[in-house]
């Protein structure tokens, strides 16, 4: 238990550090948001209006320390400010609208990719030299090595545009008659292509990682002993070998899960999916400080939460973690 407590303490410090970084990093980018606003209007804005707008957008010229303090207190209250890009919508409102879609699409893809990839890795290591090991594994690595943008664009072109099997854009059809089942059906059809490309692009990595650790583990004495004692091979494969081989992959899984919110921006652009990745690109492009901060913060919280989850899985998977206190 104290292991988990220590981890939670560590996460609290990490959260503070990243909240602070989310404040500092946008301010180190070249240009300032007022200039960025000028840019959007190609110099049409007059200086008088800019001053008034600065106030409306919440840009202050207050000393950094004061801004920082204000930022911290606002964050604690859950007030992330107003987005310049989507003015007058608040940052929480903008992120809230996008978060769900990204979490479901990218989250489900990562989980599927991890589960199938790891399982394939186990099987490939167990039956070394089989077609699974010699054919499927290199093909998946090959696909994963393609630039994702290209892969997604080709998928969109072939399965969406030419064959017309899947919708070209958006998370669901907007002209549906009401009905929760219809909505779900539509959302699933819309998610198939983006999710599949995400899985294809990442599954090879999981499989290879799992296969390699698994081969190492299979050479261990306790596996030989398990075999010698006559345990069923399925039990040896999953309960003894795979359980131990899974540990490095689980760490990677935690990272991947945390970066779900930021990592799927190309998917969202290619398939016009209304998620946070696209928001982040647009926010950085137009120096939307408040939105950048809000997204950084959300991503940070997600990474930390995912890692905490992984720590808990570790405790369950690895008895040594339980005893290390």
């Amino acid at each position, binding site marked *: 238990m104290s292991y988990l407590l220590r981890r939670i303490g560590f996460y609290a410090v990490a959260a503070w550090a990243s909240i602070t970084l989310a404040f500092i990093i946008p301010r180190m980018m070249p*240009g300032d948001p007022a*200039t960025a606003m000028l840019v959007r209007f190609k*110099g049409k804005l*007059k200086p008088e209006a800019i001053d*008034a707008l600065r106030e409306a957008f919440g840009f202050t010229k207050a000393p950094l320390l004061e801004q920082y303090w204000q930022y911290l207190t606002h964050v604690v209250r859950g007030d992330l400010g107003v987005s310049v890009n989507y003015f007058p919508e608040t940052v929480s409102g903008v992120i809230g609208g996008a978060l769900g879609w990204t979490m479901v699409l990218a989250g489900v893809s990562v989980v599927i990719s991890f589960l199938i990839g790891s399982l394939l890795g186990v099987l490939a290591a167990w039956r070394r030299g089989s077609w699974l090991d010699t054919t499927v594994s290199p093909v998946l690595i090959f696909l994963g090595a393609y630039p994702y943008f290209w892969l997604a664009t080709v998928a969109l*072109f072939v399965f969406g545009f030419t064959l017309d099997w899947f919708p070209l854009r958006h998370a669901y059809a*907007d002209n549906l008659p009401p009905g929760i089942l219809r909505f779900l059906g539509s959302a699933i059809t819309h998610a198939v292509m983006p999710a599949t490309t995400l899985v294809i692009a990442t599954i090879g990595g999981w499989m290879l990682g799992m296969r390699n650790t698994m081969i190492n583990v299979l050479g261990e004495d306790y596996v030989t002993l398990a075999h010698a004692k006559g345990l069923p091979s399925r039990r040896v494969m999953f309960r003894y070998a795979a359980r131990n081989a899974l540990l490095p992959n689980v760490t990677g899984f935690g990272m991947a899960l945390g970066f779900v919110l930021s990592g799927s921006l190309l998917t969202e652009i290619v398939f016009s999916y*209304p998620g946070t990745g696209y928001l982040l690109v647009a926010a950085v492009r137009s120096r939307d400080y408040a939105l950048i901060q809000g997204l950084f913060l959300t991503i940070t919280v997600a990474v930390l939460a995912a890692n905490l989850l992984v720590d808990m899985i570790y405790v369950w998977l690895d008895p040594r973690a339980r005893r290390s206190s």
Partner: protein
Amino acid sequence: MPRPGQLGGKALLLAALVATACAPRNDAANGVLVVEESQQASSFIRNFNPLLEVGDVRWPTLHAMYEPLLIYNPLGGKYVPWLAEHHEWADGGHVLRFQVRAGVRWSDGTPFGAADVVFTFELLRKFPALDTRAIWQYLDAVTSPDPTTVEFKLKRVYSPALFYVSQLPIVPAHVWKDVADPVTFTNESPVATGPFTEVISFEPQAYQVGPNPYYWQGKPAIKAVRCMALPANDQSIISLLRNDLDWAGSFVPAVERIYVGEDPEHHHYWSPPIDGTVLLYPNNTRKPLDDVRVRKAISMAIDRDLMVKVAMYGYTRPADATALSDAYNNYRYQPAVDAGTWVLHDVAGAERLLDEAGLRRGAGGLRRMPDGAPLHFDIGVPVGWSDWIRATQVIVRSLRGIGVDARVQAIDFDAWFDSLQQGTYDMALGWTEVNPSPYGLYRHLMSTETLHPVGEAAAENWHRFGLPAADKLLAQVELATSFEQEKPLIDQLQMLFVENAPAIPLFPGPLWGEYSSRDFVGFPDADNPYAPLSPHWHPQSLLVLTKVKPR
């Protein structure tokens, strides 16, 4: 901010893939016009506040819902009477008077009147954040002596006021008087005078607005206008090819083959060069660019025919030396055009001018400064703007041809714009604005009022050039309240620009527009140029929306 159409690389790849396919289909129900939104986005915020141009407002707000007093039409350069039937200058240019149209109703049935106009301008006075064009800087008072007349009293005679005052969207006093803070008001259920005012459905990824039952030009024939979220140019192109979009304003590479070729009967585009002229801005504070001979020599070295062909796919023409795009055709002064020989490709002439300026060729054939220091220019251009980058490559090659060492400096958009504003660049490509009168253009190019020292952000006059003679003429233009008074002054400004070559015009920007005539007819094109085709110009799109009909 990427201009629609500037992310050419990806678009090209996709377009090349797409060109081989076909599968026309129309998702939209009959009579629903699908228009490209002005914001590239992955999801929409429900905001129909027409005064919040700086905010994230939905396309119909300014293009189909709220209407101005007049609509300036850059094709023909005339004001079209809209909510006002008539306008005139009075009291020696101190008063601008409008007669508002009788019989106009708001979409809730309430009659529209002069009081609404007065209310709208008073709102701008109370909330300076809404007055983005700083109208109240020269406005003294807005009154309505009778229910159909609005009078704008100016602090001083200032003729450009007509443009800014007449293009402002008018909001209903009876609704907006109860709005506590119009700066953060999202106006989710708009009441307006325009052709499409009723929000039929609003989803984060698509929405639909229906006709105004009380529209003063009669109920529109189009059943509804629909917009959907398209985060990038590729998505616009794909949607155009699938007939999912009826009307768009995106740059389409090789449009003849990719879009028109797909369905020559229905797919059309029109891209007249009426957007602002693209200029090569030389930093006039840096030697030797402060020498007019050097600026002219650089201009003469550039092969604009090649540039238009290579960089712009032939969709525009080489600029003349007045820097006026086709939106200013009625102002173009032929003697100034004729005098501007420095925009003609003349390598020998360029070499002669540089020799005269003391920039002689040194070792390796490269020219050096008169004191022997090496001569080198970086030409700034935003990364990803493929057409501009290709144009810059043409310039660099041309300059090498006359012994001038130059380099394309493709940098991040913000860094590029920052260097323009701060004046910390050698040379850079940049745009110009389009207004009814070239007054704004020449103020940007030659006024000492817009001139800021290097290191201080300048919204205009990035090349940092000011001429007192230009100030005098510009001040006189401000007093000229008719085209006849203004024209001779603009002529002189053109002559002044041609003489001094403070910046180097390259080509007028084409204003892109594509439409499909499968389900709708009546769009403007080269044969019927009644308005710009682009759906991204407001309030001009009102001219199109009131003409387009279902087939």
